[in-house]
């Protein structure tokens, strides 16, 4: 017998949990403005997230999926993409979505039960939230195929979780992207838990990055709590895809510090100590320590940033709360380009009852 195929999976981290460089920082990280901009976004997302949970707890928002702990992964992805690229998210990647122009008020509208939340006024070609797990990986592959066919230097990015790697759609997307060398980057945010199912029940794989091996595409693991690592390797993968060298898979290791959604109670299935240990290595702390160490950040700036973020989030909440319900006819008016005849009567009926009408 002889070995005819072999693989190795590399892991990358630039900042350790204490915010000390563990590797030579990439160029963009030498630019303090860029680092501060990412820190600002991560802080904004965290404050937004806390506010959204409060809104849900006080009956002003529906079920909400928190992004607590994922800020570096999400912001790193968003920061690496170009505006003309295309994001196919799942449903909690607010850091990436906000970076790409999605409004906080839109995210609130979505979780507040209003389709207009996926209108994405300033992210015109990005895919909407995607609740059916990993199905969006195929949309990213399809988008990449459209760009490839038209010869456009654009890339698609999909994001799914560790649970999503068990889905057929995930494998099918990796496989076709590899076979057709599509300009797409698949990101798996490995936050260790798929609702109550831990990673070791999800798969026997040592890493999720190695799922790329069977598709014949590069796979890499990065510290998902290190925004520099996420952004750097995303940029590298996107450049490569843009040059026509094909897709890649990036596994970002992080931890879901929150419940799965506001409808979940994670204390039922995981230990407090595990969550506490994860909290100690969370992403904002790490970048802040680095910035402080470099003399780029201090308490006064932190306080000012927080005040600014609270103000922005409050404005988004205000906009969300003050958005009147959509007209009932919206149910019908976006179903097809033109309403089929038999739906005209149903549309009128919905209007009639909406007005509190009686026969």
């Amino acid at each position, binding site marked *: 017998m002889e070995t005819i195929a072999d693989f190795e999976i590399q892991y990358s981290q630039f900042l350790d949990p204490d915010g000390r460089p563990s590797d030579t920082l990439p160029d963009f990280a030498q630019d303090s403005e860029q680092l501060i901009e990412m820190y600002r976004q991560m802080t904004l997302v965290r404050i937004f997230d806390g506010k959204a949970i409060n809104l849900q707890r006080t009956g002003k928002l529906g079920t909400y999926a928190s992004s607590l702990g994922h800020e570096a992964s999400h912001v790193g992805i968003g920061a690496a993409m170009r505006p003309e690229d295309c994001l196919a998210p799942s449903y909690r990647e607010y850091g990436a979505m906000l970076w790409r122009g999605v409004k906080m008020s839109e995210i609130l509208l979505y979780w507040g039960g209003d389709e207009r939340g996926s209108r994405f006024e300033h992210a015109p070609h990005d895919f909407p939230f995607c609740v059916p797990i990993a199905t969006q990986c195929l949309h990213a592959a399809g*988008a990449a195929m459209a760009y490839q066919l038209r010869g456009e230097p654009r890339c698609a990015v999909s994001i799914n979780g560790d649970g999503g790697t068990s889905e057929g759609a995930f494998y099918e997307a990796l496989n076709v992207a590899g076979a057709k060398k599509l300009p797409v980057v698949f990101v798996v945010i490995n936050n260790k838990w798929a609702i109550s199912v831990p990673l070791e029940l999800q798969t026997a794989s040592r890493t999720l990055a190695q799922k790329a091996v069977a598709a014949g595409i590069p796979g890499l693991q990065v510290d998902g709590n290190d925004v520099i690592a996420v952004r750097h390797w995303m940029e590298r993968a996107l450049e490569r895809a843009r040059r026509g060298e094909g897709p890649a898979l990036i596994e970002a290791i992080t931890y879901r510090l929150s419940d799965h959604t506001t409808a979940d109670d994670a204390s039922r299935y995981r230990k407090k100590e595990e969550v506490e240990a994860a909290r100690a290595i969370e992403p904002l702390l790490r970048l802040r320590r680095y910035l402080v160490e470099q003399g780029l950040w201090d308490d006064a700036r932190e306080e000012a940033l927080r005040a600014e973020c609270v103000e922005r989030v409050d404005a988004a909440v205000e906009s969300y709360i003050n958005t009147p319900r959509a007209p009932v006819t919206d149910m019908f008016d976006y179903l097809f380009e033109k309403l089929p005849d038999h739906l005209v009567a149903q549309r009128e009926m919905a209007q009639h009852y909406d007005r509190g009408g009686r026969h």
Partner: protein
Amino acid sequence: MAAITLIEGVTRALAHEMERDERVIVLGEDVGVNGGVFRATAGLQQRFGDQRVQDTPLAEAMIAGLSVGMAAQGMRPVAEIQFEGFVYPAVDQIVNHAARLRTRTRGRLTCPMVLRVPYGGGIHAPEHHSDSPEAMFAHMPGIRVVIPSSPARAYGLLLAAIRSPDPVVFFEPKRIYRLQKQEVPDDGEALPLDVCYTLREGEDVTVVTWGAMTWETLKAADQLADDGISCEIIDVATISPLDHETILESVERTGRLCIVQEAPRSFGVASEIAAVVAEQALYSLRTPISRVTGYDTIMPLFRLETEYMPSVQRVVDGIRAALEE
């Protein structure tokens, strides 16, 4: 002009649209060099190249999902699912995404894709190659379900489906792929969607059908004509959204209705048509509605398939049932 078959009508429509609109992309399993297992895409890759006619890996959900992604980003994918028995993995993408994209994004992203699916029994095929699942898709809001029943309608309706701004599941009745030849000019004239086609005018009874069953129905009507019974035959063509008007207008005139489908009897398209007529034209009916359908069983392997599918005799009997006071 040489007459063509239904499947050649499909090929001709694909070639016409690919020539006219460079956004049109054909993809699926074996659609390239091989020209499709039924030959629907024969010659297209040679003519348009391997970028616009792409063989894909073998995964139906992927074929549908890729099409959703492409359509959302400005292309016009026309994907082939090899047989209807393999369309089920693609249902997730069709129902959760293709059908909903316009609604979910308030019109920001749309999904102008066509999923071509050969369907139905009668070709002595192996297991999982002979179902009639059109009602499953017709039940889902946001997609069109279209079924041609002649070469001309295959050409004209497929052109319309590809040009449609919304997703279409285009079921092709494989049993009649090569049954009839018809002169079909390649004039790029699409036929209207969302309307029924009256194949034969008549006075005594309205017979509503679609796909391959139009042929048994026409033969049954010929037999009944010998007995002086005049059947009006309507080909539904667009299963969903259903054209109520044509059916109701006919039933109001004839006062009798028989619906013929190959699919299982219960919870299907025939049931919906019967319900619409019962709701809106009950007092025009002089006799109870009659349905001629497949059985509520698993489609049998081919030694029994002709026993499963409504025969001309069953259609004759069904129409006679609709004539009984």
